[in-house]
């Protein structure tokens, strides 16, 4: 793997949450690279650890319950996880920005849009004058497609629609032209039309400022539209990693296959039964021995309960990994 091109390198990231009685391991040995200018998708069922991955990288896990217990996140030859707090303040928002799942609650209800947007300039460009900051705010709001930005700056979040708020969040995230944007289900809470507008907007802006995006979603359709590479997560683990085209054409992991089959398609006759993956995600408190997916897997054999498959790189295919001991025989 060409490590020169790697912008962010996540190695063996393991995160736990302390609950009342014991601690649960929510992320287990998550390892992946993010390359310059690429869009990396993270997909998986609800609760598999997508948001926790993002928050661990940003060091924004809810304190004191959430804690990274192992692993490194390397950015610019530095491990973000061992950086001083002050240093981290200069990276968040400026170098690595994040958009959250819920546009309705992500903005502070008691402050005007202008104030919340202006803050980011205050933090990272304290030398900027009021007037310059105001001009920059108008500029960025126009860029994310908000009509009459002058007026919007004086409004409060509750006066904006969900789509507008998410645009404001994107404006905030992009105002410092970050290297990396982590978008945690940025469109899940929006209607389809607005969703498409926001996705197009993100794609345009990505090209314009040449940033890398980590795009978190549970919607494979969005992944197909937005991403270059995909990570499939299951119960705190990465089960498969592949370029988007390869993943859709030749999925290797039984879980990925299941996910792909659960997408409704135009070709299938209407009203036919949609394939779903039977069963439930295992409880993270007592993870079964061996493969985590085996209880829901159609191809379970005895060995699956003995070995805990790690994500092995696949032959000479670049950046492909799969965590299944039977992938080879199943794919042939």
């Amino acid at each position, binding site marked *: 793997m060409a490590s020169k091109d790697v912008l962010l390198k996540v190695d063996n990231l393991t995160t736990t949450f302390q609950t009342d009685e014991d601690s649960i391991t929510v992320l287990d040995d998550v390892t992946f690279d993010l390359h310059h200018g690429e869009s990396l998708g993270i997909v998986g069922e609800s609760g598999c650890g997508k948001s926790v991955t993002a928050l661990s990288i940003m060091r*924004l896990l809810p304190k004191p319950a959430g804690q990274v217990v192992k692993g490194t996140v390397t950015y610019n030859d530095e491990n973000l996880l061992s950086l001083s707090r002050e240093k981290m303040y200069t990276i*968040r928002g400026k170098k690595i*920005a994040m958009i*959250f799942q819920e546009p309705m609650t992500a*903005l502070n209800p008691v402050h005007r849009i202008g104030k919340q947007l202006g*803050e980011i300039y205050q*933090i990272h460009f304290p030398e900027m004058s009021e007037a310059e900051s105001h001009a920059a705010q108008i500029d960025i709001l126009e860029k994310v497609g908000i009509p009459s930005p002058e007026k919007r700056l004086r409004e*409060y979040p*509750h006066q904006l629609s969900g789509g507008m708020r998410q645009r404001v969040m994107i404006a905030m995230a992009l105002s410092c032209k970050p290297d990396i944007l982590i978008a945690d289900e940025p469109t899940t809470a929006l209607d389809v039309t607005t969703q498409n507008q926001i996705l197009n907007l993100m794609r345009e802006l990505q090209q314009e400022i040449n940033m890398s995006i980590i795009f978190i979603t549970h919607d494979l359709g969005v992944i197909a539209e937005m991403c270059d590479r995909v990570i499939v997560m299951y119960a705190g683990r990465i089960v498969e990693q592949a370029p988007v085209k390869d993943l859709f054409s030749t999925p290797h992991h039984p879980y990925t296959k299941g996910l792909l089959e659960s997408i409704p398609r135009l070709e299938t006759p209407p009203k036919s039964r949609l394939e779903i993956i039977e069963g439930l995600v295992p409880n993270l408190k007592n993870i079964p021995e061996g493969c985590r997916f085996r209880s829901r897997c159609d191809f379970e054999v005895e060995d699956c309960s003995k070995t805990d498959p790690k994500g092995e790189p696949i032959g000479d295919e670049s950046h492909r990994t799969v965590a299944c001991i039977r992938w080879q025989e199943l794919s042939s």
Partner: protein
Amino acid sequence: MTAYFIRRFLLIIPTFLGITILVFTVTRMVPGGPIERMLTEAQLASGDQVSFQSNNQGIAGSTLSESQLNQLKEYYGFDKPILESYGIWLKNILLLDLGYSTRYGEPVWESIKQRLPISIYYGVMTMLLTYMVCIPLGILKAIKHKTHIDNISSILVFIGYAIPGYVMGIIVITIFAFYLEWFPLSGFTSNNFDELSFIGKVKDILWHSVLPLIAYMSGAFAVMTFLMKNSLMDNLAADYVRTAMAKGMEFKTAVVKHAFRNSIIPIATNFGENITLFLAGSFLIEKIFNIDGFGLLGYESLVERDYPVVMGILVIGSLLSLIGNILSDICVALVDPRVRFGA
């Protein structure tokens, strides 16, 4: 927002009518009104042996003639149906006439006016001190959640909460006034108050009010502290605080600029209720410290069936609470734009 406040002000009218009609009716229905009370006293004074069992018996065996009785009834408006005499009472109220005390014969307003400065002083002081201590303490406890500071202060606050205000009064008066003699036993001012300089007067009042204030505060203290703590904790975990942190804002700044303002919304909502509570005072605490305030006046008038004073206190009390509620609405509107814009 103007429309909202106009609506609020207009709502005062039916609320006020409701409360006063209710109490007015109750004073009429409960046996043993001011006339009976006076009769008993007259009997006791004249050494009459007839024990006072019921109204009829009492009137029959009374020292007053039928016509005198009717005169009295007329004087207090007891000769008319409830609604009619309520109407008369209400008309007088609107003319700012609260009537006369049946006990002392002096205008009700005079009795109330005398107590007003003391009650307002204690009410406002209790509230200011409670906010001044509880808000910072709540913030500290939220930020230091589950540390020693938080746990120890919780224990202290809960002890204060578990002890009723008047018991706290007795405890502090016994320790600090009786044994240690650091503070006076009772009263609002010293006997030589008039001779003191201005500064001396202020000091004298403060010196007298330390112990009663502790007793007043002990109850509200826990509620406010935990309200502040929980409210701030909720907001610290809120999405928009995370957004602020994701922008690169320092944690401290995020607490001050984002979490704090949202977390005082419930405190502001509470404000009006507290005004009323503190102004109304507590007759037990007033009794212990011999403070001549609203609480004691209300209690004594009730016991003595001095209904004009009871009604007078009620009028002033409900007006204060209505004003308090509007004030807290204004406070909430100031911190929360969603209220301001009628969202």
